[in-house]
């Protein structure tokens, strides 16, 4: 593990090419700061995220995972919202089975200009994770 003192939780963000990624980019453009331990992997659509990817991330050391979902803006149709919800539900189920705190996985629909919302979301997740995972340290 890295040696520097850990201030922030490691968060993996799954964002989508057309919708939430532009919002995250714009957060940068507008210099809306958020913890640098937030990393993004971009996929075409949030409903295509597999639960085992998320579990793998926890297993390898991510503290939290945030799904920046397409919501109703999804280019692949309106069923995306419901299906992404299912993916999250499925993963929560598996997390419980593995004794992982389900609150370590969060999801919110982000429109392509929802930079503020993105920053709010990851900051709040970060605070939660620091409180629950690093408070004893």
């Amino acid at each position, binding site marked *: 593990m890295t040696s520097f003192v850990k201030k922030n939780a490691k968060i993996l963000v799954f964002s989508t090419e*057309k919708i939430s990624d532009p919002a995250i980019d*714009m957060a940068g*453009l507008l210099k809306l700061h958020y913890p640098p331990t937030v990393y993004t992997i971009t996929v075409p659509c949030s409903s295509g995220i597999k639960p085992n990817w998320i579990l793998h991330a926890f297993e390898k050391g991510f503290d939290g995972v945030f799904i920046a979902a397409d919501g109703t*803006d999804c280019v692949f149709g309106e069923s995306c919202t419901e299906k992404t919800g299912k993916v999250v539900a499925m993963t929560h189920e598996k997390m419980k089975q593995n004794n992982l705190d389900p609150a370590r996985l969060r999801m919110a629909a982000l429109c*392509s*200009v929802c930079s503020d919302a993105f920053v709010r979301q990851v900051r709040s997740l970060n605070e939660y994770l620091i409180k629950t995972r690093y408070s004893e340290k």
Partner: protein
Amino acid sequence: MEERRKKIEFDALVIGAGIAGGETALNIANNGYKVLLVEKDHSIGGKMILLSKVFPTLDCAACITTPKVSEIARHPNITVFTESEVTSIVKKTESLFIAKITKNPRYVHVEDCTACQLCEKACPVSVRDEYQFGLVGRKAAYIPFSIANPKAAVIDLEQCTLCGACERVCPTHCIDFTMETECFELQVKTVVLATGFQLFDPLKIPRFGYGKYKNVVTSMQMEREIAPTRPYHTILRPGDGKIPDQIAYVLCTGSRDDSVGNPVCSQVCCMYSMKQAQLLMGALPMADITIYYIDIRSFGKGFEEFYQQAKDMGVNFVKGKIGKISEKENGNLILRYEDIQEGIVKEAEHDMVVLSVGMLSNQSVHQIFDGEMLQFDSLNFIWQSDLLGSPAKTNIDGVFVAGTASGPMDIPDSILSAGSASSEAISYLIQH
């Protein structure tokens, strides 16, 4: 100048690179034809690229426009001339048009500029930013706006003190004050006019106090205030930087108004005002928004539902056109109107007023045709010679019209009209 005219050849000339012109150029180019797209501004994407979100879906304008715009800029069959104007067009024979084009200097070599903004930082000059409709300043060396395309610096020579600071910091040495106007002579087979519209200038209605009362803004200024690339850190009154909480919309400013010479309806103002109202309610949860209207024209797909949604959200709709606006000492505004439903003249106080300005014809192409002249309707929009059978046709065979150049239109209708014009242009190219 004449002898320095460079000769170029294309299949199609599209004048105006707003969404209608852009869509037309893409459609034609996708069928293998070489298209020259001429734009007088520094950036393509027209007015739409400057909008916040668009009705009735509330998706952001930039998200729709920027991919289109980069597709246009990258397309191997499309050549874009920005800061350029077509000065004359002559139809020589069936499918041969000769056009003269003037390309004004940008003083920046676009292909070398990386939009690093160092010149902008270095420039000491500050003037009103026309892309923010005067709400904030910009430098004399500047990138028009953050999602402009081409995303490259421009030098505003009129305001430049020629200090050379920009040039000294530019890492790619792309700034060049020796650039001069270039002239081209173009041969094309077909021409599409997509010259768009002009916004009504509310200074023509002195009783609304625009220009005099600083908290009276145009809808385009409000559009910028709520766009992600907004001029202020949040929504503020330009008169004193206060957060507004009683905002009024004055519909039909310069539309349906014979007294200012524009008797027709602009089609979009009702809808964009409702859209702004909804966005404002999201951004300023405490704000009350009132829309003063004559008739609400929510006629398109999903528009009526959008109107109902605005009502349900609590937007206050008042039937009655604003007659006069006066200012109070604290910058608030008194609006006098007749409440039509009650038949009573009333006064209402608001702390910010948005004038929903209409669309007027853009008369920039009116004089460019030589020989066979282009015809216009009574409002100076381009005349559609077969409105019902072939709406994109003009009176000149081989010249087509797309978008708001032929009359007020919303974005979906402009895109359809562009599809129609490109269809006619492609057919014309195949047949000739």
